[in-house]
């Protein structure tokens, strides 16, 4: 179901982007307590997003599509969290949209999606779930690791963020 391959992007970008704060650069140096709160925040907003989009998809008549939506949400949320770490949380949308552009253009060979076009796979494709889980785990790791270890934030982007 190709439509949930695109419509889940805003949900994931909003969920990850809602971590944005005007004190972002200060918060990067905060204690583990804030990190835990942020993880809870992301998990809860993703649960909310998953509930919303899967409910709508089920109402629209596609139970399989709803399951795929949850998987795609996990995939894009992972990318959005990594993107937020790289470019600043306000720019969480960059990697999910870039991923979609690339996979939409190259991911389908004739009628069948390539194995790596995870968001185009049918809901019962096991590998796509493993991949989505791995990407989400990478995103959560990017969120929780201290900036010293994963300090790749490109400050040119985020400097204008923190002054707002």
């Amino acid at each position, binding site marked *: 179901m190709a439509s949930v391959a695109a419509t889940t*992007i805003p949900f994931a970008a*909003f969920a990850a982007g809602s971590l944005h704060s005007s004190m972002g650069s200060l918060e990067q140096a905060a204690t583990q307590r804030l990190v835990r709160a942020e993880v809870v925040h992301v998990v809860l907003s993703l649960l909310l997003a998953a509930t919303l989009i899967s409910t709508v998809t089920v109402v629209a008549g596609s139970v399989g599509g709803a399951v795929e939506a949850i998987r795609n949400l996990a995939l894009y949320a992972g990318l959005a969290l990594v993107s937020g770490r790289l470019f600043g949380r*306000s720019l969480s949308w960059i990697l999910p949209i870039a991923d979609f*552009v690339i996979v939409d253009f190259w991911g389908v060979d004739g009628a069948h999606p390539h194995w790596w076009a995870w968001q185009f796979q049918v809901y019962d494709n096991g590998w796509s779930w493993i991949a989505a889980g791995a990407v989400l785990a990478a995103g959560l790791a990017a969120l929780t690791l201290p900036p010293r270890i994963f300090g790749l934030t*490109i400050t040119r982007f985020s400097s204008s963020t923190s002054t*707002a």
Partner: protein
Amino acid sequence: MRHVLRIELRRSPLRWLLPLLIALDLAMLFGRSTWWIGVWPEASAAAQLPAFFFGILLGGGAAWTAGRVHRAGTTEQLAAAMQPRWRIELPVWLSSLIFGLIAYVPGVALAFIVSAPDAGPGFLWPSYLLLGACLITLSVSIGHLAGKLWQSRFIPPIAVAVCLFGQVMVPPIRFYVLSGHVQAEVSPSALITRFTLTLLLTAMALTLPPRQVVRDAGWRLNTAPIRGIAAAMLFSGLATVVTAGPLLVARPAPADPLCSDESPRVCVWPENRKYLGTIDAMVARLVALPNGVLKLPDTFYERGLRDASVPEAGSDFQILAGPVSVPFFLSSAVTARTVPDCEVPQDVEQQFSHEVFRLDAYLQVRTFGNAAALGEGGGPPGVDIKEIVQVIHLPESGQADWIKDRLTAIRQIGANCHG
């Protein structure tokens, strides 16, 4: 002004995106298919298509650039400036547009360079290139407008993606074509209305005040009618684009199509001249079958060269994504002439069509030179491809006998055959 533009170009966050956009453009041009090389309209359309995809990222970048005023907290100050709004915003918008066009040009130049040797005299079709430039401008303007209107950091890029990718669902307002087959051209009225809509959106992107200013400073600017007028103009602009008709329209057939000297002749559109030799060789493989078992037409035409009212024009060949689609059409043209006209009783219909399908599959493989013509798991239903491959390896006379056997079987199964 020029000085400000230079500063904007130097400071634009899009300069970080530019290498990515260029890489994406070139990868999309060459990384999926290369059959468009050497056919001017196809190459032009291929150079245009990446603009649609990188436009989503470009628009998001333009939105981020335009949203700078909100992030820096200067929304109010800008609204109270002495300079008219458009003069302040023009360099910002222009810098985003310049980055978009810089990403577009290398693909166009390379499409020309790689196509020139095969395609012969001519140039990329400006209509497709303009369409791509139009889409880039539209992406930047939508992004600029969205980034300015909403103070949110998340709504603008999503709005851009919805506006640009939403075109996939709404064909009448599409700003892109997937390919440029020679039988079609961009309709001038469709292109002009799209260009006008782009200008309109650009004017809005430069002049409309942000929502926040409208909300907080209503005492200073009576802006409510401006937004109403803008929405009405946008709606009528979209309606004009829809009423201007489809983006691609049929081209009139060329007065002098390109034809081979062999017999039977092969005629193609002049733009498709790089395929003439290949298709000629396909027809030669059919001619080479001994004993005149096949009945070939005098001329094989490409689709669109003959008037559609000619009875046989329906089976004129089409070149879809390269010459691999051609054997299918050649084979059906030959089968239609070769297979006798029979009455087929209902109980033997399946048997009859099975024989025709076998012959058809054989002819496709023969025409193309190998079984790749049928594609993976392709070919007519119920035909054993392995058997066809065995036949193709028989000596020429053996193959002719096999065809004769098929035709005899067809005559036996059908009733009252003639021809």
